[in-house]
């Protein structure tokens, strides 16, 4: 429905739909600088702290970028699944981010390489001495090793990337194809496939979270872990979309298309997913805390010692309470600058969350020895690594976006989306 005098949809070649030139120009410097910074961060951690911390910092950066990317993929899928009208003006941003899964697949290669050395550099289970050194029950370890071994792990990783790349490219191509043709059948087709796509997505995301992050602590298990990673992922994806829309508007793109109503809705979703994140995080914690079984408490135990306890508490306060209170008011959600600030804030907190998931497992091979991951140099190197990788991703993103549009210009729901009202 449109209640206002129907908003005028600009022609597809309007400059408001192009990536602003100032952003396109950043593409090469961001790619180059990002790559250098990323490698420098890894190198500092690798040579000045330990190989394990170096690879863990790299993995943390990778998981950060991955969660943003697949979060955006999920955003696109869910918009098609529910035939959402409001989000059409910002959907292309998510579509552009989700195709970054292709370069991310290449950035996964160093992780595979570290695995192939077979010395437990990153994943402790990769060390053939692991079970002996930790006095594990041989039967239990044999069963675990059936799942956690180099080749089966790599095979699964290939499957995940194949599915994600397939989905991302399919939905991106469909949408950009519509930019040219304006055919409604494209929307129908994407909607039709979004259901199976969501199922594939949830399975692969859960399994990837188990494989790539949870297996850092090979003897620990939590069936909620996949959802936990997803909760952070979908929250930060909404933040990224919100922040991108704000910056694009600031640079002159899509000024008439994205209105305060869209920020209001993104703000509501950010608010909801902050709560969802703590809900999942706490559900995972509560059961383990209450059960108090050594096999299960191990993971949280490592996050309650050697300074990690402060990070754990800080996550509750700054990843939940502060943004929860900050995003609660409609006043805030209807002010793009404030909501963009919270989006940026949550994107930073999401890295703290990822850091907290991955880095405590980077302690030395001897259990309970001082964790090197908390030294200032390791933290600085990790931050360099993630900033570098995000820069690299942004550079590539700008390159792709420069050759495309920043709004799905001929989507049949574009006019509806532009006229969208919340109250």
């Amino acid at each position, binding site marked *: *429905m*449109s*209640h*206002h005098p129907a908003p005028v949809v600009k022609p597809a070649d309007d400059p408001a739909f192009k990536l602003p030139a100032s952003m396109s120009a950043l593409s090469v410097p961001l790619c180059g600088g990002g790559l250098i910074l990323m490698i420098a961060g890894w190198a500092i951690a690798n040579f000045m702290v330990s190989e394990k911390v170096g690879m863990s910092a790299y993995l943390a950066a990778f998981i950060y970028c991955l969660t943003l990317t697949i979060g955006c993929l999920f955003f696109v899928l869910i918009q098609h699944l529910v035939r959402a009208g409001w989000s059409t003006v910002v959907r292309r941003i998510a579509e552009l981010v989700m195709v970054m899964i292709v370069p991310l697949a290449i950035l996964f290669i160093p992780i595979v390489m570290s695995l192939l050395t077979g010395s437990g550099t990153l994943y402790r289970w990769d060390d053939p001495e692991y079970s002996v050194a930790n006095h594990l029950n041989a039967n239990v370890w044999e069963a675990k090793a059936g799942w956690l071994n180099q080749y089966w792990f790599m095979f699964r990783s290939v499957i995940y990337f194949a599915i994600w790349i397939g989905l991302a490219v399919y939905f991106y191509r469909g949408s950009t194809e519509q930019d040219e043709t304006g055919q409604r059948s494209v929307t129908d087709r994407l909607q039709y496939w979004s259901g199976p796509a969501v199922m594939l997505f949830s399975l692969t995301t859960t399994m990837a979270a188990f494989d790539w992050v949870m297996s850092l602590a090979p003897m620990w298990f939590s069936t909620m872990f996949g959802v936990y990673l997803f909760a952070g992922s979908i929250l930060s994806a909404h933040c990224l979309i919100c922040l991108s829309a704000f910056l694009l508007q600031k640079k002159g793109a899509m000024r008439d298309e994205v209105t305060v109503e869209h920020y209001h809705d993104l703000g509501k979703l950010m608010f909801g997913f902050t709560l969802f994140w703590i809900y999942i995080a*706490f559900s995972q*914690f*509560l059961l383990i*805390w*209450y059960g*108090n079984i050594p096999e299960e408490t191990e993971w949280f135990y490592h996050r309650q010692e050697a300074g990690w306890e402060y990070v754990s508490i800080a996550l509750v306060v700054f990843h939940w309470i502060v943004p929860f209170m900050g995003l*609660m008011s*409609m006043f805030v959600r209807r002010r793009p600058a404030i909501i963009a600030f919270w989006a940026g804030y949550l994107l930073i907190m999401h890295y703290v969350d990822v850091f907290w998931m991955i880095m405590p497992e980077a302690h030395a091979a001897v259990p309970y020895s001082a964790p090197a991951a908390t030294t200032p140099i390791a933290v600085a190197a990790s931050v360099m690594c993630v900033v570098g990788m995000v820069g690299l991703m942004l550079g590539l993103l700008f390159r792709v976006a420069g050759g495309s549009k920043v709004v799905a210009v001929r989507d049949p729901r574009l006019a509806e989306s532009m006229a*969208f*009202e*919340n*109250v």
Partner: protein
Amino acid sequence: MSDNTDSNDTSMNTVSGDKKVHGTVAEFTTVDSLMDACRKVRDAGYQKTDAFTPFPVHGIDKALGIKPTILPWIVLVCGLTGTAVALTMQIWMNAIDYPYIISGKPYISLPAFIPVAFELTILFASFGTFFGMWILNGLPKFSNPVFTDPRFDRVTDDRFFLYIDAKDPKYNQAGVEKLFGEFGSDYIQSVVEDDSEKKIPGFMYKVWIAVAAVSIIPLLIGLKMRVTNSDQPRFHIFFDMDFSPSKDAQQNTTLFADTRAMRPDVPGTVARGQHDVNFRTGIDMDAMASIDGVRAERLVRMLDDDQPESASESEESAPETTKSVMDTTPWLTDNPVDVSEETLLRGKQQFGIYCSVCHGLNGGGNGLVNRRAQRILAATWVPPSKLHDASLHADVYPDGKLFSTISNGIRKMPGYSAQIKAEDRWAIVAYVRALQRSQDASIDLVPKDQLEKIKKQQAEVEAALKAEADKANAGAESAEEETDADTSDAETSEDAKDESA
């Protein structure tokens, strides 16, 4: 959908025929035309307006100029109340009114309280939303004058209505009708007082009475049961809670192959506070088994039967301990307890309680019992050992053997395994070693910072001893022994600290 405006009960200022007019309503066929009309009515300055639609229409609040609702604040306050109530309730119940440890957690255990706090937050916030919405909308409201118009029924289907209340300061029937006419509405009607029958039909009272009567029945049954007796068996609502499927001691079960409901300990179970055989006998039992398997087996069996080891073992060990060269038992040579200041203080305390009565506080073999026995010339009295004898030093009398002697006794001395815990017996062993050391330790072992103090104390003690000796020479016999015991004790405690350092 928009909120209702203030209700329209009385105080009419316009009359149509003989019925009171509440306002004017106009019908529209599309959302767009309704929204247009809303905006124009708003711009014309009308405030007491309302729109009726078959489905929620976004943006209509703005179009009608309706102010943001205060409902979110009500919800926020209710939600926070829910959190506070839940936390207070749980802290009060679990930590103050009836302190109860659950799952080994503290009384005030925040993570355990969070789920309830969360649920009550949601519950209170939902109540706040629901009832707050009712109150703000003036609900429940069983009738509205607009219902008098049969054409208004189509608002639940495919028609949209815009209404201006007569209480609006700008209201003027002709003016409003003219305004509505400009919007192209093809149906404009005054909303008049509902003069239909207001009496509740008589059968409704019968239904209510019947429902009330039936709802009392369960209560009456309950009351009757409380004041009467019955020979009928009890009615079990939750059968498996009244008759728990768990087994009592000595009962059979089909769950396990041996049909015993009581499960034996898992092999290798170590009870809390229990120690291994070596710790409890002072003997290296593996070595013992290779020398004298029968005796090793007997010793272990005695321990497992939880008998005081003294019974037969004392006879066994008594002849052996007299001459260490003949002793082939593989005694433990190291104290299995971690020898620390704490251990030595514990040893000193236990020694003071159990050993000093005979052996003396300084281990010199001249405790109160011994002195009494000497005084009454007890014929069967065997004087206790002087613990400082070279034959009792660690090189010839290993720690394990000393432990065994304390446990099982020797000659006239009874075994103390029933009175003193194994750890404490080991602590006594450690303390006895410290006592022995105190008699022949070199002054060089004293830390430098304490040397001065020790030397001063030594001088004092020597002076006191000399004075005592002089006195003794003068003929006072009994005073000497006591001073001896006291001063030695002071020295040994210094030495104990020394060793622990």
